[in-house]
């Protein structure tokens, strides 16, 4: 059990758990909005922002890169809404359009960085698969602060968000502006994706948003319960994934976290089946 006192392991575990908690909470809102794949769009949409910040400031600081990522994530989620509203392309098509063009732009910028020998560029490609072991304790503090901020905003605006999600007409009568609060949800999603990308990787952060929410939805019909259960699932899956990747040498953390969360999802559907069967046999 000596790994429990290993500072690198503790760092990674803390980071992964903090990130999964905030993505799970935001994921529940996106799930109820039937917008779960927005996480995938945001993850690819963040790339140009990150590379732009790197090109202009040559910094690898988590905070600055996250700000760039959040801005370009917000731009992508705005573009998705715009295309879906103004043309006859469906929302799903709009997401695919924004995702692939932002990803192409990201690749162009990445190859520009590589061609021009920018200093300190090693590990920029890690953004695709994530590199949790590279997190410093300063990064953990930033991630912790941002996660707390996300939770604070969700808790203080919970009533209004709930009204918007389930009855936006009634919410309008109550004087709550649906567009403002919908954009609050997308903003929080963009922020949590932006900080999570550097651990889980762009390709896998979508899973941290969708899977805990889907696993929790099987059991709950109230949004509060769903969020709390999703957070529990996220903590279990995050820790189990970090343990797995630590136990075997040279194993990436992000993919193990995703697989552990998927296992939790399938176990929870199985349990539900058994539970329902036991109810009917009584």
């Amino acid at each position: 059990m000596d790994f429990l006192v290993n500072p690198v392991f503790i760092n990674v575990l803390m980071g992964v758990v903090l990130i999964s908690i905030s993505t799970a909470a935001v994921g529940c809102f996106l799930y109820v909005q039937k917008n779960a794949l927005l996480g995938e769009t945001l993850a690819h949409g963040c790339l140009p922002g990150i590379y732009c910040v790197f090109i202009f400031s040559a910094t690898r600081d988590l905070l600055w890169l996250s700000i760039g990522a959040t801005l370009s994530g917000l731009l992508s989620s705005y573009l998705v809404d715009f295309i879906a509203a103004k043309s006859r392309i469906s929302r799903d098509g709009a997401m695919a359009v924004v995702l692939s063009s932002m990803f192409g732009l990201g690749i162009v910028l990445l190859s520009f960085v590589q061609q021009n020998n920018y200093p300190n560029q090693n590990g920029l490609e890690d953004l695709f698969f994530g590199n949790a072991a590279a997190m410093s304790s300063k990064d953990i503090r930033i991630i912790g602060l941002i996660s707390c901020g996300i939770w604070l905003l969700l808790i203080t605006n919970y009533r209004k968000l709930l009204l918007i999600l389930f009855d936006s007409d009634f919410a309008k009568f109550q004087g709550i502006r649906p567009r403002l609060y919908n954009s609050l949800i997308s903003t929080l999603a963009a922020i949590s994706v932006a900080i999570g990308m550097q651990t889980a990787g762009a390709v896998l952060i979508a899973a941290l948003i969708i899977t805990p929410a889907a696993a929790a939805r099987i059991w709950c019909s109230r949004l509060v319960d769903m969020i709390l259960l999703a957070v529990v699932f996220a903590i279990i899956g995050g820790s189990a994934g970090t343990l797995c990747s630590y136990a075997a040498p040279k194993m990436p953390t992000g993919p193990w976290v995703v697989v552990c969360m998927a296992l939790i999802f399938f176990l929870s559907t199985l349990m539900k089946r058994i539970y329902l069967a036991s109810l009917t046999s009584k």
Partner: protein
Amino acid sequence: MIALYIITVGCLVAVNGAILGSVLLLRRMSMMCDAIVHAILPGLVVAYLITSSRGSFAMLFGAIGSGIIAATLVEFVHLKFRITREASIGLMFTTLFSIGIILLALFAGQVKLDQDCVLFGELAYVPLDLWITDEGLNLGPYPIWTLAFLTIGVVTYVSVGFRPLVLCAFDKEFARLQGIKVQRWHYSLMLMLSLAAVTSFQAVGAIMVMGFFILPPATAYLFISSVRSLILLSSSIGILCVVSGFYLAQYLNVSIAGCIITLNGFVFFSALASKLYLKLNLSPVRNT
């Protein structure tokens, strides 16, 4: 010669993408494309581990196998567990992709499949992969031949299945009443999609393939309703973007596939902007 090889490969990918992508767009399954290009990874790794050769038929079967498994699992989770469709797509493809990466890490010594190669691909390497017969005859790069076969396959598939595919896209119930096997066409489309993804990924990279599938049809769909002209216009947009994107990439000295996709995206957004502008200024009833 090198430029000609690269442009030919790019155009073949673009034509395949335009044909299959138009069908996907009309069926509102664009994100399924994203899912399939990720989900073929574990199949590729397993096929490579079994046969330990690259570019063989085993890779094709591996990709088709995991593509079909992914499509089936998405439907299964969506229908049986009452999870919304997009959530079940997101859940399944991330899981399969993670399994693929874990397999790659487990057998890192034995698998000569680079993660980067799977994801990004590089059109610039196409001319290096030449097919030279025993007599020393140079038949050009391999990807041209595989993509040419794929194009024949895709064109045959869509012309044979034109009516069922289009009918299912617009009215599933009516299609079912006409005696069309809706499920069977859905899975055959997924099969063609995985086939196209695996044939194209070595040239342009898995996620880039998606841009070739989605962007030209989306641009064409802004202006056109008839399915046949949608396919024609999106193929021409795709080819134009490949040619100009190639020279732009040479000029800027950046990734060729990335440049082509960015250009495609730019064309889409300028088309959307000009359409909205025209609508505002030319509409018969002015809002004055």
